[in-house]
């Protein structure tokens, strides 16, 4: 008897937490997303599903832009994180944990502060650009801040550890003897990487993509701090609708559209990459 109850007891605190702080707010927000009205006269439930259509048509650009930035940022983090994770997993020897700590170190500083520090670094006449400009390597009116590059760069920088860690975990699990075996069978180093190590590490990449693409696409801090007029992301719009315009239905409809779009995207992605692969990795 006790054995049968125990698992439920284990899940109880977390389950209650999720119900209270995830399920209930989601139901409320779902309700708000089809309401009509304004803050002064109040909002009333009219099941106006056109809120969703409005959200999509009015802010199509920002949706697409956010997805684009999220994608670009994700690809960049993979490109940067994979070699780092590979190096730590296979070449760092006894200092592995030190290097892992270094990867995590930026998290000890507030997310916003890290982003703001980029403003100083990349200022038009700042420590980075000024010398290059005086040397004549850059045009005088060249600037990085308030460009797409700055926003995508900021996203990549802020979410990099989320990609390094899962890839590292996947690589760490690769049995060196498997690599050895492939080389015994006359695989070149490249072949043994592409045929053995890479496939075994893909679940890590998959997890990393989930952990970076989703928050990157919904991010608004980087666009607000580093972006310009043409870099507004959907997160900024949602923030404006909620906090500035107090148009809760529009904000809720936007949030749900974003959530649905990302769920669909991830589902398609999971199917394409093979969910079994991932489940297998999780089960191991």
């Amino acid at each position, binding site marked *: 008897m006790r054995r049968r109850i125990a698992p439920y007891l284990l899940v109880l605190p977390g389950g209650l937490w999720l119900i209270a702080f995830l399920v209930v707010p989601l*139901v*409320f927000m779902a309700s708000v997303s089809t309401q009509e*009205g304004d803050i002064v006269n*109040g*909002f009333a439930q009219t099941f106006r599903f056109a809120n969703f259509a409005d959200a999509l048509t009015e802010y199509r650009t920002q949706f697409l832009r956010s997805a684009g930035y999220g994608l670009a940022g994700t690809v960049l983090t993979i490109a940067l994180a994979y070699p780092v994770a590979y190096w730590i997993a296979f070449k760092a020897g006894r200092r592995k944990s030190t290097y892992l700590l270094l990867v995590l170190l930026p998290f000890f500083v507030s997310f916003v502060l890290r982003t703001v520090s980029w*403003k100083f670094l990349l200022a038009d006449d700042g420590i980075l650009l000024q010398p290059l400009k005086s040397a004549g390597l850059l045009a005088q009116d060249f600037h990085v801040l308030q460009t797409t590059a700055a926003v995508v760069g900021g996203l990549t920088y802020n979410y990099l550890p989320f990609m390094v860690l899962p890839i590292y975990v996947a690589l760490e699990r690769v049995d060196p003897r498997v690599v050895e075996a492939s080389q015994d069978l006359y695989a070149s180093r490249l072949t043994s990487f592409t045929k053995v190590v890479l496939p075994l590490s893909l679940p890590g990449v998959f997890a990393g993509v989930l952990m970076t693409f989703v928050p990157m696409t919904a991010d608004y801090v980087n666009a607000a701090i580093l972006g310009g*007029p043409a870099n507004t992301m959907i997160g*900024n719009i949602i923030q404006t609708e909620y*906090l500035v*315009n107090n148009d809760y239905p529009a904000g809720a409809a936007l949030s749900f559209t974003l959530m649905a779009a990302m769920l669909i995207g991830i589902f398609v992605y999971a199917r394409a990459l093979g969910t079994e692969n991932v489940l297998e990795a999780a089960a191991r």
Partner: protein
Amino acid sequence: MTTAPRDLAFLRGLTQARTRSGSAATPLTRRDALRVAGLSAAALGLAACGVQGRGAAAPPQKDAVAGYWADKKQNGTLRFANWPLYMDKDGKRYVTLESFTKETGIQVEYQEAIQDMSTWFGKIQPQLAAGQDIGYDLMVMTNGIQLGRAVALGYLVPLDHARLPNFAANAGDTFKNRSYDKGNVYTIPWQSGVTGIAYNPKYVDGEVTSIQELWNPKYKGKVGMLLDNQEIANFGLFALGIDPDKSVEADWRKAGQKLQEQRDAGIVRKYYENDYVDALVRGDIWMCMAWSGDVYQQIAEGQDLKFVVPQEGATIWTDNMCIPKTARNPVDALAMMDYSYKPEIAANLAEYINYITPVPGTQALLKDRAAKASGDDKEALDLLAASPLIYPSDADMARLRSYKTLTSAEEKVFEGIFQPITQG
């Protein structure tokens, strides 16, 4: 969002076609009630979380003031929410608050809790809607959309002017009876400021006098504008020679077009919140819309910046003290409000805050203090007493306009026009 039960007229809305006015609803029959009761739990959950409004702003009842204040007593504590750097400070001590405590016996819990209006309103709105204490008895809100909403929703206490003698005696005429709160029913000013143009003379040749300079292609990518819908709308209107306070929808559309041109030409680097100061000091932007006090503080710190009230006009805004309807110590709040209008106190505040003080009598006081001081202190006080940013000249004053007070319906139109420009 409130979780208060919705009225029955609303529940009917779930089962019947809703008419636009809602007036055609028939009385609720028992059958209807049962049908409502039979709705799924989910639908009830949905029904429970509508956001209760209050309808159009009703003018306060004549006896509202007396009715509210009749049974209120001084409690000896005050919880005061204000913006950062908005109270004179000596090390860690708030001098004015200490002297206030000494004089009245009221202990003050002072918090720099307000960073910007929209976030602040977002924080207090659910609590005020539910009739709960927001943790403060006195708060400082800028005139504009959020203050308008707070008034319209009945979130503010009507002030008892019988207890505000110093306000009556010392407030400048321009600070009484402002368009957003005729007769100072709910608010009295804390400090005012001007939204004008700031520029860095290191990069900008000659003097800037016209708002059109913000459209000058010479400064492509080096002009900063403000993110706030009303601020930027005002500048679009000024550029077209329209008084924002008297503008109508057609004017807004024209202003929107003008601002869109500016953006499309690549002139605007960014639509800033209060981070424009850093960008201006660092040289990321050379010229921008700016708030007078920010620029004055930079100048006082030795930065070479200029601030102008453009010839076409500029906006004057006011941060106002007001009492939330759920305040626990409203009498104490009122005492603080009045205390800040004592000329000596107002002068202390002006000396530290560097925005426009609502007590014009402080200028003479500051000149007196300058005459008695020496060295750096004297220099600072002279600069202050003579500064057109703290005491705008009559010519400047004549060019200053208020934000337009918008109805909810107008706000939607306004947002629809200007938000795509700043957040497109």
